[in-house]
């Protein structure tokens, strides 16, 4: 009798603990995930849905929000400033991608073993570490029509002064050039790491087969750099669609709003002195988000394929 009852009492007395012990491997990940997931949902995931919801209202940020359905989106279709911003976003997206070949080019140039090459590599990478605010200031002075270095140099070869940031047709390209500077540095460092891992045997084998120069680069090296190219592509696309700091510092959207992009226009509509149109701002943000979503879906899909291979 006592013998049969013994294990029973034992299980009852240690019930709580053993339940945890038995399920430890199932429960532990959730305990570890909880703080991060809660924080992230609170500040990142829910606000996305709130913005979607808000884009259906007219709201000045203080009073009552008024439900207007899709009217904000209807207004976007006829908004000239929105159209300009959208086109500028497209320019940013396409031209920003130049950072990838430019970074590869510099990486190839620096992939040597001469004295103090390490220092050269770090100094070439330098622009990426500086804040975009400072990059913006530096380039504003570089472009300045009265004393800027650009016009001083143009003056030496006899070309007239150009006011890059004051010219509606040039301004966006001028800002993109400033943004390409740190972005190229980033792509360069990705490719330098990638080049380090290129299989030397394959390169030698290709050399024996008579491949060199561009053909070698295109058919032997670039395929091996694929992981680096993927990351360079991801960060460049995101960088292009996030462009805000440079525009805000260099032109504040001007002249006549010609250098706005969606991220800047949204901020202007929702928070600046041009009025607190939160709902309209949210609608612009939703459009930007949907553009980004195409790329996010592609990135996730690529990552998912990789995970399955493992």
């Amino acid at each position, binding site marked *: 009798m006592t013998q049969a009852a013994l294990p029973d009492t034992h299980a009852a007395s240690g019930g709580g603990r053993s339940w945890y012990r038995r399920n430890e491997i199932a429960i532990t990940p959730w305990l570890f995930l909880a703080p991060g997931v809660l924080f992230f949902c609170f500040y*990142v995931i829910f606000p996305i849905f709130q913005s979607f919801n808000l884009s259906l209202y007219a709201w000045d940020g203080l009073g009552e929000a008024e439900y207007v359905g899709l009217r904000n989106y209807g207004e976007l279709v006829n908004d000239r400033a929105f159209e300009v911003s959208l086109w500028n976003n497209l320019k940013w997206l396409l031209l920003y991608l130049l950072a990838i070949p430019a970074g590869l080019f510099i990486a190839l140039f620096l992939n040597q073993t001469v004295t103090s090459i390490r220092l050269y590599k770090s100094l070439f990478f*330098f622009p990426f570490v500086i804040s975009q605010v400072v990059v913006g200031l530096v380039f504003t002075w570089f472009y300045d029509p009265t004393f800027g270095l650009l016009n001083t140099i143009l003056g030496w070869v006899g070309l007239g002064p150009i006011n890059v940031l004051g010219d509606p047709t040039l301004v966006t390209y001028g800002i993109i050039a400033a943004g390409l500077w740190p972005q190229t540095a980033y792509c360069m460092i990705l490719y330098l790491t990638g080049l380090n891992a290129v299989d030397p045997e394959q390169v030698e084998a290709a050399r024996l087969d008579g491949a060199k120069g561009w053909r070698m680069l295109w058919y032997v090296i670039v395929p091996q750099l694929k992981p680096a190219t993927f990351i360079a592509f991801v960060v460049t696309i995101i960088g292009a669609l996030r462009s805000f700091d440079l525009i805000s510092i260099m032109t504040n959207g001007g002249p006549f709003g010609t250098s706005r992009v969606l991220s800047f226009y949204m901020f202007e509509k929702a928070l600046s002195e041009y009025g607190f149109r939160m709902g309209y701002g949210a609608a612009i943000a939703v459009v930007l988000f949907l553009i980004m979503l195409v790329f996010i879906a592609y990135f996730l899909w690529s990552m998912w394929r990789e995970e399955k291979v493992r």
Partner: protein
Amino acid sequence: MFPTPIQKRSQAAQLTYQSFLPIALILWLLPLIAVAVFSIKPDSDFTTGNYWGWPSSFEGFANYGKVFFESDMPRYMLNSVFITVPTVIGAVALSCMAGFALGIYKFKSNIWIFFMFVAGNFVPFQILMIPVRDLTLDMGLYNTIPGLVLFHIAFQTGFCTLFMRNFIRQLPFELIEAARVEGVAEWRIFWFVVLPLMKPAIAALAVLIFTFIWNDYFWAVVLTQGVESQPVTAGITSFNAQYRAAYHLMSAGSIVAALPPVIMFFAMQKHFIAGLTLGAVK
């Protein structure tokens, strides 16, 4: 190695390469060098139009002295430190835990939670702007340092978790299995087995997040307003408004604002680059 090592080429090619290297570097950094030169020039050089000539006198100490002792810059710098350091600690702590959970355990929703972090990390800031600003206002944290820190921690947790999880996946899983066979509790496995192995990842993330947060401008403008809470990236614009057209002071101020991440980068270069290029090599 590609391209062909320069040592295998002719003497002339080597000399050309060696001499072209510094020229290329100067061209690449030209805008920055210009600002550095500006920052040691006297005021009079700008009024007389001597923008690009040799500085007529060395005023570096006077200019930087003004930035440090006669402006709000030290306060802005301090704010940046109080924003950046807690964010680094918070984001790294949360992501170590989340990365451990996603990297070690196999459960059904694992990949979806991971993808939630990755996707959230890529989202444009503007879609979060209005709700996060409202949230911060409602909590009474608008225009305070904690308000900014809390959001930064939450947002950076996305990128950090992606990073940590991929790092932990590369660790030998046998270690964890061996510890489990020994009957070690799961949280002890985290603390005594996995965490010590994560030191390089923690170092890499810490420098990266430090740089990202120090250089943040958008959220500083959205969530803070005045000198009592704004970081140096936002402060530099009011500094510039104060010293409009005083290019020597604006240059000195910009250099001071940009310096901490630069020092961080040169001090922790190996970790910094290892962090940025994780995944660039298979």
